[in-house]
């Protein structure tokens, strides 16, 4: 059984190349493991994650708290706290080069300039004692050596870009003078400043209200198209994902349990966890009966169940699920034709998707 990446192709090592003739995936994570050494033992937060993102593509990483979705992103950014964190195994290729083998300096150059990150809590990600214009302009002063005046002009330009009304008038305001939605726009502007190839957005709209959420997601999608960036959207919200993602990777207990193009996942989930999640969400457009509820609780990362981590909560679990970890295998139609881009880490994916 081969490990597949999100495009559904069997993985080949991308040849590292320089310059613009590189045409492999923008980012490829391979067999990534992350552990945290706590006083109660070793918590296995990420246990062999594989995914890839191309330029102009949006990958949504969906999971609950403790699924390892944010830890994976931190490992990619190189902002994981080590210790207690540790990466015992795995590779993270950015444009064909393994970032985990790079020197600190090389990584630092990629961070911010090539890969940028947007966090959930914009208020704590911005420095409260500096004006927004200064913080936006800092990127240009440090990386491009612009003068203060030029940097401020650039900052206003960026604020216009993320549709902050009256940008020129507000450039000297401090972060707390902006509303939650506007602060998140400033975060996006900051991430965009150096025109990165890849943006990682970790729950970018979770803290925002529904009406503002829609504005911010739309903006993000629009800018992504304009700059042809790769976007990794980390979220727990199945609704937000449905709006903007091209493909989805569902994580559970530090593993990817299912990958699929966005439309397919909602229509025909191939993993009992995904199916359970979809069934447990009430509908907006009609009043339903009793909700389906996945029984039990997310696993304790210090004591991940043997075999498939989902087995204690799974309605389909059998003996094999308790002993053997299912690999992320390609998913096929009943007649055997492979479904492109789809994978499921379930021993009984056939029954799940077809039955």
């Amino acid at each position, binding site marked *: 059984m081969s490990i597949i990446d999100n495009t559904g192709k069997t993985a080949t090592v991308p040849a590292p190349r320089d310059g613009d003739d590189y045409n492999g995936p923008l980012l490829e994570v391979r067999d990534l493991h992350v552990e*945290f050494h706590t006083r*109660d033992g070793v918590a296995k937060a990420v246990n062999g994650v594989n995914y890839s993102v191309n330029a102009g593509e949006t990958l949504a990483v969906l999971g609950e708290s*403790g699924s390892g979705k*944010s*830890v994976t992103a*931190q490992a990619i950014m190189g902002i994981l706290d080590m210790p207690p*964190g540790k990466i015992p195994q795995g590779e993270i290729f950015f444009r064909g080069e393994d970032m985990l083998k790079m020197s600190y300096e090389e990584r630092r150059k990629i961070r911010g300039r090539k890969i940028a990150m947007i966090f959930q809590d914009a208020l704590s990600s911005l420095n409260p004692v500096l004006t927004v214009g200064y913080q936006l302009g800092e990127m240009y002063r440090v990386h491009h050596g612009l003068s203060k005046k030029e940097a401020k002009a650039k900052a206003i330009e960026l604020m216009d870009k993320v549709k902050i009304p009256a940008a020129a008038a507000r450039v000297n305001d401090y972060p707390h003078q902006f509303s939650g939605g506007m602060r998140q726009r400033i975060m996006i502007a900051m991430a965009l400043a150096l025109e990165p190839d890849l943006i990682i957005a970790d729950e970018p709209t979770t803290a925002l209200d529904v009406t503002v959420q829609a504005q911010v997601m739309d903006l993000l999608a629009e800018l992504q198209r304009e700059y042809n960036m790769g976007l990794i959207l980390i979220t727990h919200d199945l609704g937000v994902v449905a709006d903007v993602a091209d493909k989805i990777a569902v994580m559970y207990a530090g593993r990817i349990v299912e990958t699929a193009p966005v439309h397919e996942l909602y229509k025909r989930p191939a993993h009992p966890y995904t199916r359970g999640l979809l069934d447990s969400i009430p509908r907006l457009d009609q009043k339903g009966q009793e909700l389906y509820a996945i029984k039990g609780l997310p696993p*304790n990362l210090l004591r991940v169940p043997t075999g498939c981590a989902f087995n*204690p*909560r799974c309605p389909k679990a059998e003996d094999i699920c308790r002993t053997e970890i299912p690999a992320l295998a390609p998913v096929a139609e009943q007649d055997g034709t492979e479904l492109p881009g789809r994978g499921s880490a379930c021993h009984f994916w056939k029954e799940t998707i077809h039955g």
Partner: protein
Amino acid sequence: MPDVTKTAAEAVEDAIAPPSAAEPAPQPKAEKARSLWGDAWVDLRRNPYFLVSSVLIFFLLLIAAFPSLFTSASPTVGDLVNHYLGKPELGKIGSEGWLGYDGQGRSVYARLIHGTRASVIVGICVTLIVTIIGGIMGMIAGYFGGIIDAVLSRVTDIFFGIPFLLGAMVVLQSFTERTIWVVVFALAFLGWTQITRVMRGAVITVKQADYVQAAKALGAGTGRILFRHILPNAMAPVIVVATIALGGYISAEATLSYLGLGLSSPIVSWGVDISTGVTQIRTAQHILLYPSIMLSITVLAFIMLGEAVRNALDPKLR
């Protein structure tokens, strides 16, 4: 919506924290009830700082309570024959003269042992008084707020502006006879506002917690809310500050005695000995040296204990 404000690492912590109910059968009894205090205790016992400091403090308390267990020599009566004799005789550790004698031929060792009591009494009594008074004041200010809080806060601000030792000197000046209790009073009088500030802050934080609101919603009275919900959750920072302050009070007593404003002969205390030791520093350094060492060790022990307790109680680690 999970972890609105948590970082990924904290989310991982969360995922570690709860017992996995997804596996109920194998280990229902394995996980016992662990209170936060119990957890802190487990943590403390593993902390080498705590072990070292608690052994030191245990001996200090033992010496203070039963000085006669450690020496039979008198700290106040000396034999002038031994005037200024002073070389540590390691072969005779614990004997009357192994740390030498002072100008009046009294055993330095015996004075060290008997002087412990004064320091320990001052430290513990001042700490107890400031914790009780400061704690009550802080609770009142923090919980009731309004005008009471405004007045109390300004009072603590005023005290905060008075240099601690200078204030103690002024208070002590107004007493003709300065016993241990006078020193305790002077230090406590100036020290309670520190605890008040800490307690007030902690109470204000805890007061807003949902579980306090929940208790109010149940119809709980003020007493129950204060003593069952707020106090147990606001106590941790007070304990830490009080423990560290205890060392400070001991050194304050020594400082005041050194300046001639605290205790004085015939009361035996390290501060008194340091004070006399300084005048004879050229001829007999050991009179200054040993009480200084004891004082430093004692203060260090309480500060280490405070740090260890802080680490164990820090909610961020849970």
